[in-house]
């Protein structure tokens, strides 16, 4: 049964390369019109999953449904793609490259669309420059235009912000948010957890080919509970090496984050700390996406 509100649906998908399982029994549903964050350590299976959504790879098992279509291995013109490793014909001019990719995606009268995109990216003067003459940031903007030039219903961005300076990062972030505003579904992978928290409606984490997180930020954070205490002793003195009820201590600037065995241990821990010295700062901290990522990846 195809759900019209779902842009991408993966059902028990598996992909194996030689003896290595890249993606294992993966289920995923990306709601239409959302920004969907794809996180996970290097080599966890993010790019393989995205390539299966793009039908560059065929799954060895399971089913991939994209924009309601489950048939065939023909690339879909309704899907835009910005790969992690950027690639453009170095000896072609910007306008010719954009015209080529626009025509491949079936854009009629591409020149007007190209001009519009170049102006939006502040790149109106680059049309006749060769790709090899562009800086990395400039080339990345052109690559982004390639991905969005056909006004796709679904766009997949693999590490779109890597290597960009803060100004260009902001510009690209605004462009992605505008895509969402226009109803485009955006899947993007990133290692920048702060950016993912700011932009994503839902987050999906894959680790060693398996799904380990999937939900809205609130759902994910509440799932990890409020079992972190941020404390500081009055004279800055170190905490005892072992504190009953605490699993782990992580230095966080002037503070120390204590990983509790459970939320119910907060009062016990406070009493224990007060017994060894004057507690200057004591607060319950909700784990950030970064904390959750690190916690999962350390297991």
């Amino acid at each position, binding site marked *: 049964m195809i759900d019209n509100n779902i842009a991408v649906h993966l059902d028990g998908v598996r992909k194996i390369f030689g003896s290595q399982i890249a993606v294992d029994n993966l289920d995923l549903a990306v709601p239409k019109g959302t920004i969907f964050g794809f996180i996970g350590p290097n080599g966890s299976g993010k790019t393989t999953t995205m390539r299966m959504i793009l039908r*560059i790879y065929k799954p060895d098992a399971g089913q991939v449904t994209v924009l309601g279509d489950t048939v065939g291995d023909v690339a879909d013109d309704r899907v835009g793609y910005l790969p992690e490793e950027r690639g453009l014909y170095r000896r072609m001019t910007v306008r010719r490259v954009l015209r080529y990719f626009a025509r*491949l995606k079936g854009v009629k009268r591409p020149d007007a669309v190209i001009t519009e995109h170049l102006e939006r990216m502040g790149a109106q003067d680059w049309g006749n420059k060769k790709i090899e003459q562009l800086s990395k940031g400039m080339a990345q903007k052109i690559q982004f235009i390639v991905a969005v030039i056909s006004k796709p219903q679904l766009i997949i961005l693999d590490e779109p912000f890597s290597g960009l300076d803060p100004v260009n990062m902001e510009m690209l972030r605004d462009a992605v948010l505008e895509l969402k505003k226009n109803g485009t579904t955006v899947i993007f992978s990133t290692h920048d957890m702060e950016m993912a928290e700011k932009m994503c409606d839902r987050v999906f984490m894959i680790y060693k080919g398996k799904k380990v997180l999937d939900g809205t930020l609130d759902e994910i954070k509440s799932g990890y509970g409020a079992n972190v205490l941020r404390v500081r002793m009055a004279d800055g003195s170190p905490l005892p090496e072992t504190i009953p009820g605490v699993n782990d201590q992580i230095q966080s600037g002037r503070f120390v984050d204590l990983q509790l065995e459970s939320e119910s241990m907060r009062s016990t821990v406070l009493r224990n700390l007060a017994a060894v010295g004057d507690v200057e700062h004591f607060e319950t901290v909700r784990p950030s996406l970064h904390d959750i990522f690190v916690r999962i990846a350390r297991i």
Partner: protein
Amino acid sequence: MRKLLVIAHREYAAMVATKAFLFTLIMMPILMFGGLFLMPKLSTLSGGKTQRIVVADGTGKLLDSLKTSADDRNKWIQASVEKKENNSADTKKLVNGSDERRGFEEQPDIYELIAAESPELNDAARLKLSDEIRSGTLYAFVEIPAAVLSEAEQTTPAKISFVSQDAMLSSARQWMAAVLQDRVNTIRLERLNLDPQLVAKANAPLAVDPTMPYTAKEDGSANAAKSGDTLVALFLPFGVMMLMFMVIFLAAQPMLESGMEEKSQRIAEVLLGSVTPTQMMAGKLIGNVCGSLMIFAIYGIGGWLIVDQNGWNANLPWNLIPWFIVFQLLGVLFFSSIFLTVGASISELKEAQSLLMPIWLVLMMPMMIWLVALRDPNGIVATTLSFFPPSAPLMMILRLASGQTIPAWQPPAAAILLLASTALVVFFAGRIYRASLLRTDSARTLKQIFGRLSNH
């Protein structure tokens, strides 16, 4: 279909609209055929020197004749250079020492003959003269043994030694051999009381002229081939074969670079977001075939103009054009698919050399044995190679252009076999291409390339 045409259009433009392509398009025929025209010009640049030759005449009867001939020759050359009219047959005999025609004209050297200190040289004298040759003060020295004139030696001729740095290729040696042969023959005949002039008349050479088959005129009479048609008949098949080689070479090479660029620059992944690997490969091959047809048209028109200017039209095998196009298209598809796959499997151009060398060698095999194949176009070697897919395009077109009758079933049979092989190559190349495009490593052996078939 739209995507195929978009890719084909880009590939065609990328192939023909580059300076490198234009350069190769011009240089290729110059490198292939230019030598034939350049060699005579280059040889005139090195001619015109005075060559000092020491002669040790053990007979005591030949040096004067040699000097007289050399003087006559030198005077002729000087006079000819002044008049620039050294093309007559008499001049050639004087310059070359015989009536034998040479392949091209060159500025001849002047010979200065010097008598050796002694008519018979000892080792010390030989070493001294050899040193002079090495230092460049002497061009050569010649030892003529007395036995040369001995009648007893006529069945096993005495050897005259000609010592120089370039003895094997020396024009002076050839001239001297001819003059000495003439003079020694005369002396021998006189000793046998025979009139040398009568013997020369009796030995006048017969001319067996190579002539092409007659063609029928409109009135039914036989039309004799023009002189020179024989040479055209020899070199035209070679030219046709070279034309096909150039088209295949110029078409296949950009495929290698294209496959490699899209892999190494990570363009493939962007493209695969829009098209399938099969569409990519098919589009590239269509663009490539269009490019090859353009090359064929350029070289074909150029070749026709040369043929027309020289009045060789009658020899043109017009009936070959359909076969040429069939074998050229199949050849381009066959080799371009292989080159594209190799390009997509490697990261650097140098890695392609070891992979493509065996393929090049098989393609070029007909060029190495073209004379053998032309002498016997229906022989086992030529026939076998015209059915072996990698060598089939060049060998079959060479056989067809030879003018001899080829069994009628063979060209279509070879074309069908080549078509089937091409389809197979395109199929497997497509699978390897698909598996190789997104890999970051290089395949350095054919085994590694074929191993990718099982990994996708």
